[in-house]
């Protein structure tokens, strides 16, 4: 069962396309990290999924139901946290929880209390008077407490200090309370926070999904390579497939990113091209991979596969 499906989903704002013919499937129980540069359309995509925006064309389905016909009851199993949401300023955290509780049959008051303690949120101060980090925590709290099947977070870590981010992740990890699969969709620049949690990664740029694969596979095929030779090195021509960001800081040093690294072959294939040179291969974090992808997109104007 797919938690999320998109079929040629498109949305434009006037002439500007924000999301273009997006096709995506996220199985239930996956932790999906949605990466992309600013303006890539990540927020738009998430809003389209939850019927906060309506598509110009195409369809999307969430937990089996069409996004455009999501009813109030469907939101009982969906949580949504985004920066810039209009939280009711006058309500205190306690009042907010008290208001939300009867709306959700799966509300776990014990979890709510525990999380409120974990997040260190004061119960009787109006939300309008809380700091940004506390507001995000309050929003998260009001979403986690009913253990939704689908949790959507749109740039949740923006501007939050590391302690708050820590609390956030901790809260997310508290979520699964039973054997039902829980799907997470997190869009972020700050990928390092969720590096360990992500099952699948999607890279969105210019409204298009350029990369969509499991995190492990992505980490598996990206490597930084440094070749140090005892004489001047020449870049092979034609450029081998998968090589990107080739730099030559010195005549005998080549640095590049290899995007199609095969772990079983190791560095031997590269070594073969430069006999007698030292080849150092290093794995990359998802954050570094994201940078490579973003730079490539910017440079190529959306063309070229990575």
């Amino acid at each position: 069962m797919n938690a999320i499906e998109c079929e040629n989903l498109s949305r434009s704002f006037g002439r500007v396309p924000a999301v273009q013919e997006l096709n995506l499937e996220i199985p239930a129980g996956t932790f999906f990290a949605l990466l992309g540069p600013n303006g890539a359309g990540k927020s738009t995509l998430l809003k389209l999924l939850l019927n906060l925006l309506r598509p110009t064309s195409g369809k999307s389905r969430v937990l089996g139901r069409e996004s455009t016909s999501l009813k109030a009851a469907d939101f009982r199993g969906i949580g949504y946290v985004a920066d810039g949401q209009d939280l009711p300023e006058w309500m205190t955290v306690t009042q907010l929880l008290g208001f939300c509780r009867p709306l959700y049959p799966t509300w776990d008051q014990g979890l709510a209390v525990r999380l409120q303690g974990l997040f260190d949120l004061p119960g009787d101060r109006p939300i309008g008077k809380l700091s940004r980090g506390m507001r995000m925590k309050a929003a998260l709290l009001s979403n986690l407490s009913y253990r939704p099947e689908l949790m959507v977070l749109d740039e949740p870590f923006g501007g939050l200090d590391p302690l708050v981010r820590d609390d956030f992740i901790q809260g997310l990890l508290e979520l699964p309370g039973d054997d039902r699969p829980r799907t997470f969709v997190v869009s972020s620049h700050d990928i390092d926070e969720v590096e360990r949690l992500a099952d699948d990664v999607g890279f969105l740029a210019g409204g298009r999904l350029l990369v969509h694969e499991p995190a492990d596979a992505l980490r598996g095929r990206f490597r930084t390579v440094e070749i140090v030779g005892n004489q001047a090195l020449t870049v092979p021509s034609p450029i081998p497939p998968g090589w990107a960001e080739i730099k030559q800081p010195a005549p005998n040093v080549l640095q590049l990113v290899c995007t199609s690294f095969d772990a079983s072959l190791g560095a031997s294939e590269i070594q073969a091209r430069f006999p007698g040179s030292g080849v150092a291969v290093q794995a990359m974090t998802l954050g570094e991979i994201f940078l490579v992808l973003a730079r490539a997109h910017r440079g190529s104007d959306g063309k070229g596969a990575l």
Partner: protein
Amino acid sequence: MSTVLLILRKDLRHLWVLASLGVLFSLFATLGWYWDLSRISTSGFIFFAGQVAPIVVLFVLSVAIVQSDPTVGDKAFWRTRPISPGALLVAKLLVLCLVFALPSLLVNLFLAVSMDTPFPVLLGMVIESTGMILIECLVSALVGAVTRSLMQAAAAVLASALLLMAVAVLNPLPQLFVPWRMDIPGHAPRMAAMGVYSGIAALILLAHQFLTRRWVRTLVLLVAFVPAVLFASVHWPVSIRSTSPTEAETSAKLETSVGVQMMLMPPAVTWSTSYVNNPATGKTVKAHTVAMNAAMRSIPEGRIIQIDSITSALRFPGGEELQFQPIGRAFWPYWSSLTQATAISRELGLAPPAPSKEQAKQPRLRLFTVPNEKAVALAGKRGTLTVTLKLYELAFHQVASLPARPGAHWTRDGEMWRVAKIFFEKGAPSAVLEHLRATSILINEGPARPDYRPDGYRFGLALHNKKRGEFALSTFRWFSMDLPQWTIDRNDRIVTFSEAWKVGGSPVDDPIDESWLADAELVILSAVPVGSFEKQLVLENFEIPQSEEMPESEAAPYWQ
């Protein structure tokens, strides 16, 4: 259902400031409507503002209450919660009802009960007044729900209202929006108001569905709802009871022996220019107006005979016949205060005043109008002029009597007369009277009867001092504040009782003072048509007069 209650509880707790303001405002507006607060000014900007201000305040408060929980926009917090927009709207409406409709309903109820209103009218009033406020609240709530700020809401309403006005002006159907027409039922303004509100709501809903790309709903709304609203505002189908105005009983009997003789008095025939609508061309043209001096004879003293219409036709020997445009019932056929005094005293069972020695003024009758070209074409031709006069008689019928002091009131069946104030001016007493009538659009009061008569010719007011055997008649000042008809139709009048008579007819010696008033009662009579009849005049050898000279301007004939 529980979601609705949840939101209701939250709103009342959070919005108690707005809610209290709303309740106070609602009470103030409804009460102020019926008491002296509404008399700040009778015309101009303040008055207009007094009509518009309540609607604006209600709108602003309603939108504020609704928009405290935004439901539009992609940042709205509640859109990703299991709260259906329907439930939210219902909860908001309940808040609005409690805040606006309930106080107004209670006030209306209280007033109607104090006016002794019969039950069906009471029920109709309650339903209507609550319904009107509910519709205003509903429209405001709808507008607030689909817009993001008060500014947007106001702009949307203004735009829809302008659009509706444009439609109304261009479309002959909804003529009810035109306030100066007099031949429409009394509740038409309220119908129009409901139509306007519903139209605004429909338009804004339509726009919202369109802008949020819900094409199917847009289409459905466009095809079904908007015409339905327009239709309903024209043909109001609902009536919970029919009443017909009670035929007035009066002791007067129709006098058909009234003779009307056409007397040519010098100058026998006059003409003047007037501007008439030429039905052939639709243009307004100058016309010959033939007027002949005529007098009505054999009218018994104190009888009031009025003319309903004059139809003339000129038949020539060759068989050619010229039909003139009928001249319809129109404005004030004057009758003297002596005549009025006689009519009233007859009704009150008092001896009428002595007949006057002076010759009764003879009203000039204008028989027909003919355009210049036609008159010239018919120069010299003689034919038979047949004039058919439809006449009716008015008699005074006593409606109520109440003590002549401030605060006195009289109620019956949902109608109330109340003396607000009595003051003296130039030696004559003046009274400020309030006349209230409970009505409801749900009570069908029969077909509309156009009534061009001003108050002086619909009511007679007399101060009757039984102890002294004297009575005073009113002349109406033209101060009649007709407020737009609501469930309690209110008309205020200032009358001056400047002519006093002794019973038996002679004028009173001393001016009326307060001690006189202490023993007096105010009698309210209404002038009702007693019956109608026809008289026909035939003039042989009649020729349309011609002349090149235009006459001096003269007293404009009262008849049109």
